[in-house]
């Protein structure tokens, strides 16, 4: 019976217990705390109301700050919808700007934004997913992993205008792409890389380890396990990450200012080397540099409304989709 150390000690202890109990030294016992205890009790009673009140007051401030954030979002959306809805018409969505951009529609901007966003995600997705596979499936903790993570975190922190400068210097000038969809998409792709890596990694992390173990246990190699088990399971989450990256890229202005977007071009792009118009840049141009800033206000609001519908719509889809996925993976 006495095969484990634990058993021995437990049993021996059981025998020794009662003796030990009598040995507890009286000297160790501190003096009774009759006086102080009543002070603690009295203080607690006296301050009870005050403490309750402080908590109530502070918690209402916390609640208020959450409400302020929600209000900020709704106020911005409210003004864009209220002032922009009037500008929206079939003509607005399907025609090019006319009369020095004071009339007409924003079709080239919509097309440009979609092309840039899709282009960016075509660049960022493969690299982002592969990076996430390495980080989550292959990498072991250590200096290499830490360096890569540090790189990703710092890339995420690079200001968007600096990406613009980089795109200008590298893609537009050095690689001689000129101001073009290609240069803009590559710049935006580099910028959305950290977003894609982050959300893709989350999707991989959500795949239970038991799946991997089961596959490896059947004699599959690591790569087979990733390709046949991990990737398919994580795919919906990966796509969610893609949508988030796409929406981020579509809403950006500074990176495309010097690399892809132009003030005005009446034609739709012909190739990936064409320069284009884009919704965010169009808003900026109309609101700050147009010839008739006041007269084009409705167009500005309309463009802004189209942009936030596009961007928030994609985000909402991603958020809802992700919430469903989480529920399913939880069982």
């Amino acid at each position, binding site marked *: 019976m006495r095969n484990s150390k634990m058993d021995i000690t437990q049993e021996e202890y059981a025998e020794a217990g009662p003796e030990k109990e009598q040995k507890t030294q009286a000297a160790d016992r501190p003096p009774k705390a009759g006086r102080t205890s009543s002070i603690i009790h009295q203080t607690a009673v006296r301050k009870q109301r005050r403490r309750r009140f*402080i*908590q109530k007051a*502070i*918690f209402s401030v*916390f*609640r208020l*700050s959450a409400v*302020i*954030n929600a209000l*900020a*979002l709704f106020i*911005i959306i409210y003004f*864009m919808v209220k002032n922009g809805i009037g500008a929206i018409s079939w003509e607005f969505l399907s025609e090019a700007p006319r009369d020095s951009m004071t009339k007409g529609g924003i079709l080239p901007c919509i097309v440009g934004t979609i092309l840039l966003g899709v282009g960016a995600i075509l660049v960022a997705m493969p690299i982002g997913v*592969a990076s996430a596979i390495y*980080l989550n*499936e*292959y*990498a072991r903790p250590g200096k290499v992993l830490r360096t*890569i993570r*540090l*790189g*990703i*975190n*710092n*890339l995420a*922190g*690079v*200001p*968007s*205008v600096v*990406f613009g*400068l*980089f795109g200008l*210097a*590298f893609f537009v000038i050095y690689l001689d792409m000129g101001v073009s969809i290609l240069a803009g998409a590559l710049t935006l792709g*580099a910028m959305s*890389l*950290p977003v894609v890596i982050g959300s893709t990694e989350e999707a991989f992390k959500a795949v239970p380890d038991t799946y991997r173990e089961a596959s490896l246990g059947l004699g599959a*190699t*690591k790569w087979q396990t990733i390709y046949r088990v991990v990737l398919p399971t994580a795919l919906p989450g990966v796509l969610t990450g893609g949508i988030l990256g796409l*929406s*981020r890229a*579509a*809403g*950006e*202005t*500074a990176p495309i*200012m*010097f690399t892809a977007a132009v003030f005005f071009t009446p034609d739709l792009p012909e190739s990936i080397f064409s320069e284009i118009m884009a919704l*965010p840049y169009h*808003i*900026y141009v109309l*609101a700050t540099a147009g010839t008739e800033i006041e007269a084009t206000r409705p167009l*500005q609001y309309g463009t*802004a409304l189209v*942009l*936030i519908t596009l*961007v*928030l719509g994609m*985000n909402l889809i991603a958020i809802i989709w992700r919430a469903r996925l989480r529920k399913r993976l939880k069982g």
Partner: protein
Amino acid sequence: MAGKRQSTEKVMRTFFFCVATASIAVLFMIMVFLFMEGLPVFNMVSVKEFLFGVYWYPTSDPPDFGIYPLIVASLAVTAVSAVIAIPLGVMTAIYLAELASKRVAEIFKPIVELLAALPSVVIGFFGMVIVAPFLQQVLGVATGLNLFNAALMLAFMSIPTICSISEDAIYSVPNALREGSLALGATQWETLWRVVVPASISGIATSVILGISRAVGETMVVLMVAGGAAMVPSSIFDPVRPMPASIAAEMAEAPFRGDHYYALFATGIVLFLFTLFFNIIADIIATRYRQVGEASL
């Protein structure tokens, strides 16, 4: 057979490793090209003159390339926005992680995410056409396009960052600590303030630094809302011209590889180093002061 499988394994592993270094490569290229296009300006002005010169007249003859007003503007806008964003962001995070019921939190979290998703140009536009006239009227200031307005708009751009990272940090404080405190007769607020927040302070600090870093580098808002005057501000209602605004506004007009062009790239270097500094600090805090979890046995 086994040999082939093994070599495939090795190839895949190497392949993924190489791709994963892409982020570092991009970061490195950004540095290389910023320096390549920015350093030539120092043939014309000294580093000291560039950083501490108080006149930014890049197009006059002879031009002045002192970005001190731009740096001050960036720091001032960021500081004011931090004053607004930190309490709002952290308090919202605490509310969502600790106080809100599950249902309420499920409504608020997407709201914060959507706030983060709003394109910066839309926030800039909103600040320009709605907030600026409002401020001008209510406060009677000369222009609504000023430091304060830009800071306010920026605050709502960094709140989501602060809020979501703080919330994760607060949420991951082990429940045992909360119970331990409550069982001693502490109120929920006392538990929060004296146990939960100190236990998650490194995560909260990280979130704050990343939020601030985002505000320093944010471009469209300061471009559209800050007012654009390249002067050292004397009040928070003065118009200013932070670094990103200057770069974005002037790049299109700067002659290719002229002094102005180089000066803007050099401004980009300064901006890049600022955010790099913040991000590295955030990283150090996050890894070195790892969150204290449950008692180890």
